[in-house]
């Protein structure tokens, strides 16, 4: 089986890190993995994305035009990548910043782009499975909007079982190992609440 | 009503895409004002270097030639020798001018080429993500000096104005900054002077502008301005290092 996905959002949302964590978890599961970032001048525009592939077989192209899944953390990414997900695929939307007519909490209205989030995600696709999770709000409640990425990743993994829970946890620990305990704790909480969100709504 | 602040003619009507707080935008504007001041837009050729200023070709409304890394002074020489009636300026970063292009700048200066060089010293390589430049301060951390620049392995901050002022070929050399309104005003005057020297066929002029790179310095724009004031000015004092424009005929 080859599972390929694109993770996308603003620079600073930790897009690259969750991609690496996922790839690392896949590696710990003894799968073949690749992680490929958008790099260089592309990043000056403030958006970031990476492609992660987890596979039983040796991986071919590290870049995919039509991924099996996408995790989109903001509206521009939703608009760009939702149409590319293959039929029967999975789309996880951070509904705090994309695709919902929800009120963005005052403290999150820091960029112009956020205004777009009020526009909504109109042409919803029926041929893929869409998961909405208010990751940024959930993260805010945990005490740091920065862990929205971990919430989204954990939810995605709970839904798709792309990697094992154990490996995901180990991968997270290794990625934060050098940093402080409080950070690790809040990230653990984030992973837990992301997972729970899926399991509760199953 | 008389407008007090308008876009110079020498700049296209497009917004700069430099990082917030980057001084490239201010320095572009000062160069454009000088071109407007002398009314030479239609006979000026600018050089877009390799570096963050490569996009000069998107911003200036004069003709622009994009040149290989470090080679602008040689390209300027070619242009000016072929067409002495044109006004030529090169706009180069510290990686471009003071590292890979050291030979070219020294020899253009030494030949006294009648060109104007705008040298933007932001103490690192901006475009490639913040590596050490020859102008990086001692102790300054960059991508390739993770423990800070050390004199024993990387040498000392290269003082371009001081060095070029010793060459007999040069006419006007000044170092400026644009980190506050006072300095910016002075910088504008200096850049005009540098163009005037060329217009009067008096030879080689170079203005070094100390500039911020908040992105790679990992500072806010305000902090970056302070850092220039407190750290860079000590190593790179402002002032006129050479002016023989009055004695040259």
């Amino acid at each position, binding site marked *: 089986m080859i599972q390929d996905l694109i993770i996308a959002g603003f620079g600073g949302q930790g897009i690259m890190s969750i991609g690496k964590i996922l790839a690392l978890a896949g590696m710990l599961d003894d799968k073949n993995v690749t992680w490929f970032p958008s790099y260089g001048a592309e990043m000056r525009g403030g958006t970031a994305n990476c492609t992660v592939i987890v596979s039983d077989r040796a991986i071919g192209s590290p870049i995919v035009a039509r991924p099996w899944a996408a995790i989109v953390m903001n509206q521009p990414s939703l608009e760009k990548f939702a149409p590319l997900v293959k039929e029967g695929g999975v789309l996880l939307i951070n509904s705090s910043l994309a695709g919902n007519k929800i009120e963005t909490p005052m403290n999150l209205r820091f960029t112009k782009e956020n205004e777009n989030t009020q526009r909504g995600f109109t042409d919803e696709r029926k041929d893929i499975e869409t998961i909405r999770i208010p990751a940024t709000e959930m993260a805010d409640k945990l005490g740091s909007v920065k862990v929205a990425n971990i919430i989204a990743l954990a939810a995605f993994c709970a839904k798709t079982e792309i990697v094992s829970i154990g490996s995901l946890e180990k991968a997270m620990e290794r990625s934060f190992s050098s940093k402080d305990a409080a950070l690790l704790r809040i990230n653990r909480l984030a992973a837990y609440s992301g997972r729970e969100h899926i399991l509760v709504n199953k | 009503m008389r407008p007090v602040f308008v876009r110079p003619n020498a700049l296209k009507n497009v917004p700069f895409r430099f990082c917030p707080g980057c001084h490239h935008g201010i320095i572009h504007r000062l160069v454009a004002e000088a071109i407007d001041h002398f009314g030479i837009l239609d006979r000026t050729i600018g050089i877009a270097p390799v570096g963050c200023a490569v996009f000069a070709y998107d911003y200036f409304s004069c003709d622009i030639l994009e040149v290989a*890394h470090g080679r602008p002074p040689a390209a300027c020489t070619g242009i000016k020798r072929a067409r002495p009636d044109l006004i030529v300026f090169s706009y180069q970063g510290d990686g471009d001018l003071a*590292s890979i292009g050291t030979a070219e700048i020294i020899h253009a200066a030494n030949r006294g080429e009648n060109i104007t060089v705008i040298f933007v010293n932001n103490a690192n390589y901006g475009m490639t993500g913040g590596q050490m430049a020859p102008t990086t301060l001692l102790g300054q951390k960059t991508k390739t000096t993770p423990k800070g620049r050390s004199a024993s392995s990387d040498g000392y901050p290269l003082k371009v104005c001081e060095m070029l002022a010793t060459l007999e070929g040069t006419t006007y050399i000044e170092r400026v900054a644009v980190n506050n309104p006072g300095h910016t005003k002075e910088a504008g005057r200096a850049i005009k002077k540098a163009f005037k020297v060329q217009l009067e066929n008096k030879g080689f002029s170079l203005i070094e502008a100390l500039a911020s790179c908040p992105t790679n310095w990992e500072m806010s724009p305000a902090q970056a301005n302070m850092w220039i004031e407190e750290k860079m000015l000590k190593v790179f004092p402002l002032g006129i290092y050479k002016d023989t424009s009055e004695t040259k005929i």
Partner: protein
Amino acid sequence: MTNDFNNKRLMIGNDALCEGAVQAGCQCYFGYPITPQNEVPAYMSWRIPQVGGIFLQAESELAAINMVFGAAAVGARAMTSSSSPGISLKQEGISYLAGAELPCVIVNIMRGGPGLGNIAGSQGDYFQATRGGGHGDYRTICLAPGSVQEMMDLTREAFDLADRYRIPTLILSDGILGQMMEPVIFSNDLNLFDDLPEKDWALTGAKGRPPRVIKSLYMGEGELEERNWRLHDKHKRIEMEIPRCEYLNTEDAEFCLIAFGTAARVARSVVYLAEKEGINLGLLRPITLYPFPKRPIKELARKGVRFLVIEMNLGQMLEDCQLAVNGVTDVFFYGRPGGGIFNPEEILKVVKSYL
């Protein structure tokens, strides 16, 4: 992220190649920033001092390659890296290194060209890398990694090959392989040559022996010609001894893709797609670009296999493939220049149009 797990680490290609150099005992690294290889000098700036090596950011690529020239002349294992425009600048030095028969490793993480081009991964420097590149009648070994693991392993091996043949050895990779992460296995059983020749030519100080000279100038009557014949013999030996390629599904295939590096990764996906559709499609991936694995291609051609060469350029390795096939069967081409990259579906369509 550096995570040890059963000797496996998830790394980007540019970092992995540094580890390959460290494993080979590289003593000196000289470089200059350029995207998309900036990770190499950044990594080397802390990594090589850890193992007692020298890191120096040169003032230019010209300087960097000449620093390599100096270090190699005194017998040190030396490396430099850059991307396309910087490699062009190094060509003068590479020509001198080849002329003086100095071993060293030069890494090219290719980007789009010509000129300043762009920073996307590309394969536009194939001609430059496999034809010598600089002036004069010479060749350089050229290895093309196809994975992050190979970025490490081939870089390590490149030092051995360079020493074995006293020849500059190139790693020809691109921005995609440089920036992507994959698991890399750090084996304890490094496959190093143990029969490398003594560097009895190195300039170590004429103490107790006659002075040595390393040079590329041969002004005497017939001197240079003789020397070039010697280089030629060496090249022939290299062409006999080290061509290498990887095969995938070539046993029963009547149609075969030929691709190297990143393009070969896409080609692998094409082979998977073809499998699903029941199409017999093979892949031959040259690992050494000079010497080019002519014989395996020739053998397939003799069996009547037809080929589609795919490259991230407008047809450079194509010419080597055509020379190998020599008109025996068809060689088709599909490529995209300037940092464009094809997707597997796109190529499968092309394949089908020839079946």
